[in-house]
């Protein structure tokens, strides 16, 4: 642990509990004030037409709570996979020098596995998008 110097107390670069608490409090207060002001100043005059979903000026037909087709789900899953990959690569990049070649090899292995996964879903047609008929 490093000693906390007075001059560093509110620095955002030096780690410290006090500055974290101050910052969190400030964030909470600002968000709360903004939410309150917009809720209070924003005049709410609901009526049945205003609360109805907007659909090009026509009263909508049926429900919007449908069972969505699979492609949307697949896209969401693929996004998650490759998004998580990003999170690992960034943290490895930040610590790249200290973990050295061993880290590099492990990371390469990780990326290659994901690349194989990408090639697999590509070959399987998981990235095909658009109307089936055409």
């Amino acid at each position: 642990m490093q000693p906390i110097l007075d001059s560093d107390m509110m620095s955002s670069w030096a780690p410290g509990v006090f500055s974290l608490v101050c910052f969190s409090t400030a964030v909470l207060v600002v968000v709360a004030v903004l939410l309150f002001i917009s809720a209070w100043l924003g005049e709410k005059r609901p009526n049945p037409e205003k609360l109805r979903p907007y659909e090009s000026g026509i009263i909508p037909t049926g429900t919007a709570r449908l069972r969505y087709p699979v492609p949307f789900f697949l896209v969401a899953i693929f996004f998650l996979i490759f998004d998580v990959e990003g999170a690992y690569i960034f943290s490895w990049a930040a610590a790249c020098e200290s973990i050295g070649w061993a880290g590099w090899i492990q990371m390469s292995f990780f990326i290659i596995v994901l690349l194989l996964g990408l090639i697999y879903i590509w070959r399987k047609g998981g990235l095909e998008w658009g109307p089936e008929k055409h």
Partner: protein
Amino acid sequence: MGSGKTLAALEPLLRPADAVINWARSRSLWPMFFGLSCCFVEEATVITSRYDIARFGAEVFRPSPRQADLLIVSGTVFKKIAPVVLRLYEQMPEPKWVISMGSCSNTGGMYDVYSVVQGVNQILPVDVYIPGCPPRPEAVLHGLTLLQKKIEETERPSRSVFHLGGGRQGTQAPVLVDGVTKSRDPRGPGMTGTVIRGSSVTPPGFPESRSDLMWTPEPNRIVLGEQEKSLSETLSARFGSSVKTRPTTSDILTLDVDKEQIKPLLRYLKTESPVRFERLDDLTVIDESARRDPSSYPDFTLVYHLLAFDPATRVRIKVPLYGDIPFTETVTDIWPSADWYEREAFDMFGVRFEGHPNLTRILMPPDWEGHPLRKTHPGRATDMAPYTREDAATKQPLDGGFYIRQPEAGELILNVGPHHVSTHGLLRYILSLDGEEITRLKMEIGYHHRGVEKIGERQTWHQFIPYTDRVDYLAGAANNLPYVMAVEQLAGIRVPDRAQCIRVLLSELFRLSNHLVFVGTFAHDLGAMTPTFYCFREREMILDIVELITGGRLHPSWFRIGGTAADLPSGWKEKVDEFVRIFPGKIDEYEALITRNPIIRARTVGVGRISLADAKDWGVSGPNLRACGLAWDLRKQFPYSGYENYDFEVPTAVGGDCFDRYVVRIEEMRQSLSIIRQAAANMPEGRCVTDDYRYVVPKRADMLMDIESLIHHFVNVTRGPKIPGGEAYVCCEIPRGEQGYYVVSDGLGYAYRMRIRSPGFANVQVLPMMADGWSVSDLIAIIGSVDYILPDIDR
């Protein structure tokens, strides 16, 4: 909240708060991206660079009412769309303001007709009225600044904002009630009980019409060619006495056919006859009940216009129908395009077509009573009960489930339109979606039905010209041409060479102007914002030339029967030459931005394809037909107004997809420019209106000089000329395709029947075929590429 004393103490604080809030609000008005008709084109022009509404803080046009606080009601408020307008207004958050833009929205304007609400203030409160038809873009800016001033000077929002009770903000004006707080009388208030002057000689009866006292020569007579004669002989040999050729005609071969023989005849003409009539050009009905001599007419006449591509020729087939509810057989199994035409005939005249798959109303609202184009139906909205806010709240458009019955499990029914940024006007698509793939697509039209065919039966032959401008509000003077040519054809009026050349010049300028809007909006639909601004920049140059020549922008109403309204002004040639010099470089610029853009190619190549056979069968015309590979252009096939003297190509493409429809139009701009160059270089000298003043408005100089011209001027301007009884159908290649006017005269100062064959009606009917199986985003590209416009579809 607190006692009166504290409130009084707060008052000095509230004043500055009012000022701050008003300042902020008035300088950040967010208009809704909402347009009804022609006026919206000028409203949209305000966004572009020359007028730049961003200077007033109002450039953030919002597609959804949720995000907008200003509703600019731009254009005609139709009875069918009024419930939607009211809903959009109700769905806007508060405070909100309303600007009524243009004569139609203000008072109904020139559309005192059964389908139009006579002023939006009968259903919504209005803050500012902008007069004009359409108002210029500067007028929109003026209206906006007036609204800003109104907000700053009269509104006290802070009491409401701080929950103190009271205060004043948003629209405070009352909704008006006809007969109580407003008068729909076109002459203004205080005239109740006095009959409108001239109304005794308007439909359905024309008692003591002075036109009866006027003499005219016989209508124009043409001599049929060898080909028509041999066709006529072949038909009488095959069908005997049930098919009779009219001995005289003003324009094309005309056949009278019995109801029983019509289907065999049409099938023969389409598939077996020596000349194959592959397209059903038009199908309509005439209500004969108000003829001057009813004994020689049936109750109704069904009229087919057919077109043959090779050799290029037309034929008219007339079928007499009898009874109050006349019926005949459907021809949808011969031409699928007859679907909408027959529905229209049913809707407008009450003619039944046996065997039609879906014989329901198409233009009028589902709960409409009567058939508007029957002579017994009132023509003017002011002759009918006023449209009220209660009507707007109750007469809802039909539910989407009515169009898409029993959707598959998991399919979503989605309404795109009538108010939608990408539908290019008031057209409603009802989609059944599996994910984002379109499994079924239905359309509902009629939201923009301005009853112009009915108006044609009450305006004199000259008075009707301004209405033709507004049939396709982006094609301006090009719209006048088929109408004036049809009347000239019927009456045998010769147009001087100079007038013909001026007509060509104007028509081609408007073709460019229309295609520029197409290119801009098409790219915009595909997500490219920039081309719109470039295209509208050059469009303003064209409108400047148009304004110099005609004095108008969108609606010049400048062609006249027998010529044009005036001669070209001095300085026109320099302006045209300058434009012709710089425009080719601009087209290259658009091509660099759009044609070679890989995203646009990926979105459009192969998308929304339609085959040439389908396009012919469904009556598709104009650039959409040429994109399928057929070099068919009326300017080449049936040259009119001197087009045979110009050297130009007919651009075509082969694929019939969205990209081809775009490319054809780009190439057409180059060809149009070449025609403009030739017209300007070879402008003949001479008169701009015929010197036979029987039917035309004489030149003013002559009118001031001799008594003959003065008399003609007086009669033709006030009572209107009498056009000899007969009929003529003339089609022109306007920017969007083939627009035809079928004028029927009963020898009076008004048309007996004014039928408009519009390109959009046929072009849009094929949209479900183009869009089937594509995704929603592809639908937007397809809509943009078809380039339709609503008054042209709904008329």
